[in-house]
């Protein structure tokens, strides 16, 4: 919100340097985003001579100007409103004009034939007004003098006010904060209507007010100003409105905007005669009704027709809705040049209702921005009187002597808060001087009664955000300055139960992946439906949870698998020309209907039981290896299997076996399920051609996804170090032939079962195919190591074990020993 410094000075002595004033606001909690000091470096110039540029067809002139340096300066100008003797603003080279990125230079014109050093400025170029047509004329000033000696230049602050402080969304509010920060006190404007502006007539019988919706409208106040002459506002008012970014309209509307920016209470002005007319044929006393909408149309001030329903509040002329309360007024009852009598409204509207209406209609106005934050119901009468008096003063006419003021639902009065220097000191962490705290609170408008260390603090009527001790602690803390707060670490009394230093599983997993050559990816938790459907990873057939309000179709559902994101990330890197991409991602997916039990830390009232359950959020790991061809892709799959095996071992989960299986999105014959302790924990394989095409993937891609929480045993076995074996191993090779369809996993299981405890290890290290075996057989060689813990095995022991293994292999896999 834009705040004019000149305007602020109406309410407080703010003579400190600008930097001090701005820093004071920042230090006490009002963010100042930008300070616009007006144009700097502009000087006053007097036109000495004007002559047409011979080459110009558009009336460009040479202007010789006096800038107080003796020698005149010659600039070029296209303006048609200049006469010799005029005083005008001149921006010399090097000036940075408001809104320009670069300083002015010397401009070469007409093919470089003439030079124009700097320029004469229009009102728009100086942010002094809206007139862009000609050069701005100055009333007075000495040639060469800085511009601010000739015109009033305002400093405008762009402030950001937190949602709890709607009282600061106006000049009096900011003046109060700024004044308090520099040790001054604000003087609020006198809002009473001067007797001279009042007429003897009363509101009675001139208007009836009926607030049917007390919930939506805690307070509704009105005044009538008669016999006004609508005209442009005086220059001072126009300038102030422009300074804060508002467009002047006429003296009635401008006053309502001005008072809103002054006091933080929006107002609305109706044309009283149009209001009566809108009421229709009954023609009696104008009747103002505040009620909920009845799905009726209101033609708004901006020319748009909008419908108001039961969730909106309408201000009605009799039965006819003419204004959308708190958001935007109606066109049919608006004030314009023909208006003679003004019906002025100042109301309190229910914040959440205004917020909902503004959101639903997509209309945010100055008024709705204020009302939605929940304004105090103490504001309307003062703002109403202030505006009525200003209208009568500027537009003539008289204010009827009384006002209508309906308090349909008085907001609860904020009770005084008992606090003490001891409490303040304890909560802020340093010894707070009670009297100093009391003074600071008083400057902010609080009523303070001090009895020794005790304070009774009554928040001012406009501070509905202050109601508990902690709120007062904040007011004192921020006023006295947080630089006074020392830096300490809290004492250590936390019980050790439930505390243990731990390397989180995520970190251990990431270390394994990074060590294995994978870079970490982070992809969005939302995906497009086509991506989710193209490759489902370990998410399988689960249907993804749709977002009600996604940012785009590309991000419309929650992921059930990390694979689509990782595949897309790999594809992007390949497109960027990176080769051999290895990526992994560790994160959560969302599986609807699979959460068992309530989330830890649910409220004991059981309120969640009535709500749809939260989805399960499995911790998944997806990894991918890009490959130029089929054999590299096969190696990639092997590498992924090895990584998962390593992880399962490190986490204490045991071994992971892969079972060939059809996995949607992965190549048949090159995909499988990963199983650990009899439970499916993941999938692995190579992306199939359709999926590759969907993701515009170059080359081939091996992927794997495992559910990490399934690999973390509930009671991990403690780490053990055993003494190295004392007896030698007997190592033998066993060569067999098996049918070509035999699976290594089956064979190795058979070997281990038959080998028993004396088989220390088995490696399948060679596969052989050849004409001598025929097309139906392949040759395998196992390297077997036998060892007993308590004796040296004889070759006879080893032979009998190998024979048993050969029998097992024959039974399970149809293996024949090759001699």
């Amino acid at each position: 919100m834009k705040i004019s410094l000149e305007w602020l000075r109406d309410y407080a002595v703010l003579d400190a340097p600008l930097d001090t004033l701005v820093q004071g606001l920042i230090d006490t909690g009002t963010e100042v985003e930008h300070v616009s000091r007006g144009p700097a470096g502009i000087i006053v110039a007097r036109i000495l001579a004007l002559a047409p540029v011979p080459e110009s067809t558009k009336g460009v002139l040479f202007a010789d100007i006096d800038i107080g340096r003796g020698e005149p300066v010659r600039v070029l100008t296209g303006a048609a409103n200049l006469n010799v003797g005029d005083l005008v603003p001149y921006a010399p080279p090097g000036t940075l004009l408001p809104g320009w990125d670069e300083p002015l230079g010397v401009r070469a014109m007409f093919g470089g034939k003439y030079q124009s050093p700097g320029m004469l400025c229009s009102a728009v170029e100086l942010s002094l007004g809206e007139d862009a047509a000609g050069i701005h004329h100055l009333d007075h000033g000495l040639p060469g003098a800085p511009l601010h000696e000739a015109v009033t230049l305002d400093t405008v602050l762009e402030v950001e006010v937190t949602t709890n402080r709607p009282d600061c969304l106006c000049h009096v509010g900011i003046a109060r904060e700024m004044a308090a920060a520099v040790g001054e006190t604000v003087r609020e404007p006198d809002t009473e209507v001067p007797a001279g502006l009042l007429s003897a007539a009363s509101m009675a019988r001139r208007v009836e007010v009926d607030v049917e919706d007390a919930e939506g409208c805690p307070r509704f106040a009105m005044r009538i100003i008669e016999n006004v002459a609508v005209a442009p506002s005086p220059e001072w008012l126009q300038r102030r409105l422009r300074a804060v970014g508002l467009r002047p309209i006429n003296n009635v509307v401008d006053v309502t905007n001005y008072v809103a920016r002054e006091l933080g209470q929006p107002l609305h002005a109706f044309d009283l005669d149009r209001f009566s007319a809108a009421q229709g044929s009954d023609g009696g006393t104008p009747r103002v009704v505040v009620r909920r909408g009845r799905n009726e149309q209101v033609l708004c001030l901006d020319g748009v027709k909008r419908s108001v329903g039961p969730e909106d509040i309408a201000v009605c002329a009799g039965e006819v809705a003419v204004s959308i309360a708190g958001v935007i007024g109606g066109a049919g009852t608006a004030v314009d040049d023909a208006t003679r009598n003004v019906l002025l409204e100042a109301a309190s509207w229910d914040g959440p209702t205004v917020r909902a209406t503004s959101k639903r209609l997509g209309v945010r106005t100055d008024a709705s921005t204020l009302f939605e934050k929940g304004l105090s119901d103490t504001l309307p009468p003062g703002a109403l009187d202030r505006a009525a008096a200003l209208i009568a003063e500027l537009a003539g006419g008289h204010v009827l002597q009384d006002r209508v003021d309906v308090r349909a639902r008085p907001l609860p009065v904020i009770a005084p808060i008992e606090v003490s220097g001891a409490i303040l000191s304890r909560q802020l962490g340093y010894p707070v001087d009670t009297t100093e705290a009391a003074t600071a609170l008083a400057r902010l408008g609080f009523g303070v009664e001090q009895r020794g260390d005790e304070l009774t603090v009554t928040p001012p009527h406009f501070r509905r955000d202050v109601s508990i001790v902690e709120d007062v602690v904040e007011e004192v803390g921020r006023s006295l300055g947080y630089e006074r707060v020392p830096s300490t670490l809290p004492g250590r009394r936390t019980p050790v139960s439930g505390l243990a230093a731990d390397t989180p599983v995520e970190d251990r997993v990431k270390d394994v992946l990074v060590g294995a050559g994978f870079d970490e990816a982070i992809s969005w938790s939302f995906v497009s439906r086509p991506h989710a459907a193209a490759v489902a990873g370990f998410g399988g057939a689960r249907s993804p949870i749709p977002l009600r309000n996604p940012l785009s179709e590309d991000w419309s559902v929650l992921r059930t698998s990390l694979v689509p994101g990782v595949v897309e990330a790999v594809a992007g890197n390949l497109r960027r020309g990176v080769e051999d991409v290895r990526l992994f991602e560790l994160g959560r997916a969302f599986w609807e209907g699979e959460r068992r039990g309530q989330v830890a830390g649910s409220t004991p009232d059981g309120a969640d039981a009535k709500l749809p359950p939260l989805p399960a959020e499995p911790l998944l790991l997806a990894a991918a290896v890009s490959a130029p061809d089929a054999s590299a892709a096969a190696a990639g799959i092997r590498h992924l299997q090895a990584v998962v095996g390593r992880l399962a071992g490190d986490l204490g989960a045991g071994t992971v076996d892969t079972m060939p299986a059809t996995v949607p999105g992965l190549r048949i014959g090159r995909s499988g399920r990963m199983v650990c302790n009899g439970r499916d924990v993941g999938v692995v394989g190579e992306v199939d051609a359709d999926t590759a095409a969907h993701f515009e993937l170059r080359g081939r891609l091996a992927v794997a996804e495992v559910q990490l929480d399934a690999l973390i045993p509930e009671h991990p076995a403690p780490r053990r170090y055993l003494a190295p074996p004392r007896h030698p191993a007997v190592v033998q090779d066993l060569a067999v032939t098996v049918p070509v369809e035999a699976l290594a996993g089956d064979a190795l299981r058979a070997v281990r079962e038959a080998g028993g405890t004396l088989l220390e290890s088995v490696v399948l290290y060679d596969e052989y195919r050849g004409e001598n075996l025929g097309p139906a057989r392949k040759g395998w060689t196992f390297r077997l190591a036998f060892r007993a813990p308590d004796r040296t095995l004889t070759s006879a022991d080893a032979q009998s074990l190998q024979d048993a293994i050969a029998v097992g292999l024959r039974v399970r896999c149809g293996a024949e020993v090759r001699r």
Partner: protein
Amino acid sequence: MGQVVNAVVERVTDAIEERRAALAAGGTGDESAEAIDLTWPPAPLQRGHLHPVSRVFRDVRRIFSQLGYIAVSGPEVEYDRYNFTLVNMPPGHPSRDTQDTFFIDDARLLRTHTSPVQVRSMLIRGAPQRVIVPGKAYRRDYDATHFPMFFQVEGMCIDKGIALCDLKGTLEFFARSMFGVDRAIRLRPHHFEFTEPSIELDVSCAVCGGEGCRLCKGSGWLELLGGGMVHPNVLRNGNVDPAVYSGFAFGMGVERIAILAYGIEDGRLLYENDVRFVSQG
């Protein structure tokens, strides 16, 4: 005589052994023929790389674990009441709008901050406790500096007699540990519904050291995080008695820390999964 013979035999045997050992080691006796060019760069040892966000998480965890904090988590799909109502933003509260929320249905949403874990952790662990909550949050906002998914670390300390000075000290310890011991901090008053008083923490600019530069927009300070003293209503919602216990809480954006700590010029790089970017770490 015998002694001389033995000595000769010994010497010959030693010579044979020596030569055998040299041959076994692959030597030819001519060592200069086996010289290698040690200035030839070795093939680099290949490994992958953590994402910068993961690095920040590790640093933050390490720093707070030194102060006795444990890391906890909560669901990313949350109930409206935990995300808003229980952290002092009842239905209709204007601050709900500022948090552009992704909704799933009337009751469920993607959490807009890690703060709901404050209440959940209080309900699980009671008082006293010290936790940090590293995790994802979501807001319906996407431009050069806002991402629909982002990372936060929430921190909370509940105990008897916790005061604002403890929050300031803790954050100063964090800022100095994360960004260097010569960094200064300042607290600015701010407003959050779930803390009272509320503050924002600025840290002195790394680039200019407080003189004012482009990064800090001339102020000498960089905004780092928000926090405050846990609001009594939030303590009550966590079943902690505000008459006995008090606490502080804070929340920081991990992207912001990464940008400041690692000099990342554009936060969008963190979400592009470009290995040429990630593999610098």
